[in-house]
């Protein structure tokens, strides 16, 4: 077990290094520079270049970046002078996570419940009903859902605020917007697996032994139907926690997703690289955690991971 964790950690470090290298050089290959939008005089630009170390050769910049990274220092933003990338992430990540985490929990809860219910009633009307909603949820893009929810519940009915989120309950609309799509995916994953699992012999034998339907479904069938959904949750958690550009834009949330996309347009080298590293880190950690979860639920995963 410890060996597995260590091997995994080593591999993940390698992945991080590759991602860092790629974003570092790709960003510098993009046409334009961080100061092009300010129309400043070349002398000042030269000074700015010297200040941020951009006048150095690329290899030197890369080495400096890596040494700073080893101390968890992601450098200074080029677009927002005086603010470090660490500060920006520390400010905006909680905003994104405050929406993303409830959305993740809601998606998991809705998805598992709906998936199990629809598998139990396979091919009968509750199943068709749930499946229809899941397919609809899969097809409605978040910019449609988000703006629609704002229009109905915030502008027409006035139940939720349009912006300015103060109480936790104010975040219901963005959380719903983020949660519906993954909930639909999880519903479908659980449903497919569950239908298959419920037909296996050990379920029949559990029923024959006189076990109640709840125990059969929850204790015997569900753990075997979960792995596909759990493996999907890993990357999903990273996407939801680091924020979605569109949802943050529609709901005017100052989250990480907004910074990420605008910083590419701004050629804010350090901010792009910093957020990418942060995202990859969250991605690798959440994939690792979900793997551990699948591992503890299902001993067969041990062999799958080992190979």
């Amino acid at each position: 077990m410890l060996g597995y964790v260590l091997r995994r950690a080593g591999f993940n470090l390698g992945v991080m290094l590759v991602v860092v290298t790629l974003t570092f050089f790709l960003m510098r290959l993009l046409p334009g520079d961080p100061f092009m939008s300010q129309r400043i005089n070349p002398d000042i630009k030269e000074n700015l270049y010297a200040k941020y170390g951009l006048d150095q050769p690329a290899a030197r910049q890369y080495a400096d970046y890596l040494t700073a990274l080893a101390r968890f220092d992601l450098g200074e933003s080029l677009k927002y002078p005086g603010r470090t990338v660490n500060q920006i992430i520390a400010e905006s990540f909680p905003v994104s996570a405050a929406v993303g985490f409830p959305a993740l929990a809601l998606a998991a809860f809705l998805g598992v419940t709906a998936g199990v219910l629809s598998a139990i009633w396979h091919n009968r009307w509750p199943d068709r009903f749930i499946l229809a909603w899941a397919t609809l949820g899969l097809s409605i893009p978040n910019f449609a859902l988000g703006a629609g929810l704002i229009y109905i519940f915030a502008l027409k009915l006035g139940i939720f605020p349009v912006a300015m989120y103060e109480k936790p309950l104010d975040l219901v609309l963005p959380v719903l917007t983020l949660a519906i799509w993954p909930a639909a995916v999880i519903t479908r994953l659980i449903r497919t697996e569950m239908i298959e699992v419920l037909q296996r012999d050990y379920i029949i034998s559990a029923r024959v032994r006189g076990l109640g339907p709840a125990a059969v479904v929850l204790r015997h069938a569900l753990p075997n139907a979960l792995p596909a959904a759990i493996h999907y949750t890993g990357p999903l958690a990273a996407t939801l926690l680091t924020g979605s550009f569109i949802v943050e834009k529609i709901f005017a949330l100052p989250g990480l997703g907004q910074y990420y996309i605008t910083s590419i347009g701004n050629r804010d080298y350090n901010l792009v690289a910093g957020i990418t590293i942060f995202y990859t880190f969250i991605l690798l950690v959440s994939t690792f955690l979900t793997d551990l979860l699948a591992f503890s639920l299902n001993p067969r995963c041990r062999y799958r991971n080992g190979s």
Partner: protein
Amino acid sequence: MPFPLTPGAATEMDPDMVYSRIVQNRFVLACLLLILLYVLISFGGKFYLPYHPNVQNLYEANTGPSCNHWLGTDYLGRDLLARILAGLRISLVIAFFATLINITAGFLVGSIAGLSGGIADRFLTGLIDLFWCIPPFLVVVMLTVVLEPGVKNIFIALGMVLWVPTARIIRGEVYQLRNAPFIRLARMHGAGYTRIVFMHILPNCFPVLLTTAIFSVPDAVLAEAFLSIVGLGVTAPEASLGVLISDGLQSFRVYPWQWFFPVLTLTIFVLCFNLLGDIIHRLFRDRSKGILEND
């Protein structure tokens, strides 16, 4: 629907059976007809609509749906219906070519990796894994910035990202087939690499490729909309569905129809493809299950 299956392929799929099952299923038929309708009205829109999608009429800016403008007008007084049809056309072109790049690149990389094994396989799998770790929208956004937004560059950028999962699936499929009797036999008969890939591997990957292609269309349309909202959409007077949605998002609080109609068009389109993909997927899964039970 033509299915390019060679007689010797392991897929025991009767084209007539597929055809009848598709037509019998009303859902599929409705989806197919709706998609056909989308293609027809969007490409035919040029000929029968009284308004040009890019002609401005500021006297009629931001008017709601009426007899003259069925779906209303936008902030420059352009007819929304004409713009939606023109936008749909651009979105369809982008989705079509992105999907084409997706399955071509995905199939080539996946089958070469799966069939060759050894160093080539390791290298290509490594490449796939590498792409897997970088957030896809970062790659798309960067590529679009480098190539400059435009119809061609958008579908190239999208294709460059979409092929990664396809290649992974195809590689898995081909890897299992690599030493199948009919492949070995073909090799013994002196069939070249290209012949094996296109005459023997391709028909066997066909179900997977078809499902992937169907699911890739809504992905590409949605990704294009995402790019437009980010501000990297098709350039100004022309508009894709995504650009219309992005414009609509600016004003949906005041002029909801400018947001509602493009979004509705897109959602129905995506829904059709998702339903179609589901059913095709189930069709092929049933088929493979049947084969297993006969064994």
